């Protein structure tokens, strides 16, 4: 390599490196705060109750609407729960105390209430677990006349924003569980079976149900 080649090379490098400086812009370097070390976190032992005065949602239904799910048969993707029984889900006890909820395994699991006959479903209410502030992931509520949920499926709620449960992406908002549970407006959707999915929660990977209530009118 002679002097001329070297000069050309240096010129090229100078041009290349000078390009960003020429338009006056350089990458902004920002120092962000480093984490502070801290001691063992404290246990949280507050009851997760809705603050006093919190407005509960009002769903307008026809006057002859009644509770259809009480004592009805419940099936699940986890047919042998380690804690509790599937019958707890429709037994009317929504206290959430030990012995009043059923615990299903990790990952996406479903429970299904068989209303016994097709009905016009006005609303579905669910209490997952409310003795601790937690949010259940991928809560999906569907109604169908097909016990396999392969055809004629209407989804009335879906907050699976990343489609991690592979049932379609949902745009409904996640919510923190409280003693008020959650009531979903079914808008009179017809069906015999109501299926609820969830995929763990913010406290653990498991899925819980204290109670499900399905309101509607016989068809």
């Amino acid at each position: 390599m002679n002097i001329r080649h070297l000069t050309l090379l240096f010129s090229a490098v100078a041009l290349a490196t000078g390009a960003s400086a020429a338009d006056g812009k350089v990458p902004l370097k920002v120092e962000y705060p480093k984490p502070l070390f801290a001691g063992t976190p404290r246990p949280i032992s507050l009851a997760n109750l809705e603050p006093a005065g919190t407005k509960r949602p009002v769903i307008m239904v026809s006057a002859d609407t009644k509770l259809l799910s009480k004592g009805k048969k419940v099936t699940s993707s986890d047919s042998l729960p380690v804690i509790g029984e599937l019958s707890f889900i429709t037994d009317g006890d929504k206290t959430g105390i030990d012995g009043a909820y059923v615990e299903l395994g990790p990952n996406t699991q479903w429970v299904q209430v068989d209303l016994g006959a097709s009905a016009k479903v006005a609303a579905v209410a669910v209490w997952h677990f409310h003795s601790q502030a937690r949010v259940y992931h991928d809560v999906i509520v569907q109604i169908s006349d097909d016990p396999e949920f392969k055809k004629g499926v209407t989804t009335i709620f879906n907050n699976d924003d990343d489609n991690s449960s592979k049932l379609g992406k949902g745009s409904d908002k996640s919510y923190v569980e409280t003693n008020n549970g959650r009531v979903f407006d079914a808008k009179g959707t017809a069906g015999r079976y109501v299926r609820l999915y969830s995929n763990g929660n913010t406290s653990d990977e498991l899925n819980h149900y204290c109670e499900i209530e399905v309101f509607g009118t016989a068809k």
Partner: protein
Amino acid sequence: MLRWLPLALIAFVALGLRTRDLATRPMHADEANQAVKTGELLDSGHYTYDPRDHHGPTLYYAAAALARLRGERSLAELTETTVRLVPAFFGTAAVILIAALVAGANLPATGSPRWPALAAALFLAVSPPAVYYSRYFVQETLLATFTLAAFVCGQRWWRTGLTRWAVAGGACVGLMQATKASAPLFLLAGVLSLWITRSGLRPATRRPGRDAVAALLAASATAAVLFSSFGTNPSGLRDALAAYVHAAQRFGTDAAPTGHEKPWWYYLRIFGWYREGGLLWYEAPFSLLAIGGMLAAFRGPSRFLRGVAVYAIATTLAFSLFAYKTPWHTVDLVPAFAILAAVALAALTQGRAGRLVAGVAATVVIATLLQQTWRSSFTRPADWRNPFAYVHSSADVLKYRPLAEAALARQPAGPIRIISEEYWPLPWYLRGLPNVGFWSTAPEECDGALIVASAAQAEAVRARLRRKYSETFLGLRPGFVCMIFTPEP
């Protein structure tokens, strides 16, 4: 060679239980905190003892050495498995040490002198808290192991009179001190046991004073080397003493509650039985055997066993009376309980059909311990009802890094903002990622590639966001929910 086979098998079981699937359980906030501290040691090559928020240096130096052996040379490369292997190896060593301690005691009237040692080793090998915290990157298992090593050395010195055992014992005491500031409690309990059970007796040496000085020098030198960061941080020696000043301020009568105050029977409940959230937790069969062993120890001729019984009572009382309680202290109680349970088995063999009764008792105790170990360490290791998973991170913490990586892929300049009054173990999970910042309250500028805000900070953060974001939730630990703000396209 065959003589060592039973102990080798027990040690193999202990190692297996302590090293299986180490990376699966989410990192606890304390583990993450200490792993990041280890990573900083790897990154900078330097460690400075911090008497305010951290225990002693042994854990970090041991983990850094193991990390280098495994080819991990920075915080970004450090893994859960590497850091948790440290207590796993020490926990396995404890199983061998307890056998050495019991075998060295020359227990009378137990048939073979070896099997009580093996029984104690087996009880410790499968003990739920011993297994759980041997898979948990905190100091407690190291402290328990150094304590056992100190007692083994002390026992050997007492019997042989050899100064080298005094020096080795002193070095172990130095390691205890360099592990956790609570080390003197165990030494005091040991001295109390010695005083009550061996008054009037003398060790084999003719120069106990000289050996005591040698042990003290060894302890001081070992602790000094570690606290001073191998001589590079002399103020670490002063800070080692300052730890007690901080402890007095933190736990003194005028101090604010730490949030970890619990009733006096907290540890007894863990060793007894109770139901939490539909799950039954118990170690009652093991504890009953240990209580039987305690009674047999006080009635029997062995000074060693009486000493163990006094030690067990003293340490249990001390931990129970102190208001600050965390479940990892159970690790310090298990070795004495395991020896006493082994003694009870030995006593059972003395009666009619004794061997059969002892065999049934041993089978029941080991089976129940194994069942509880399996549940606590493998099937529900982070469950909020698990007595050892104390304020444990939830499985959701594993989802933060993929979210952050996706956010940086969309917006490489970031920043990723973690705005929360509590955020551990997230610094561990986000290690090595650029443009990540941590705030305890909402800063003026909140926009970013991804914002994680605690429920308490979410409103303030939302009010300061200028762009449009989608919102969802992720957990940090049971009862602590964070809101995730992701920029909308």
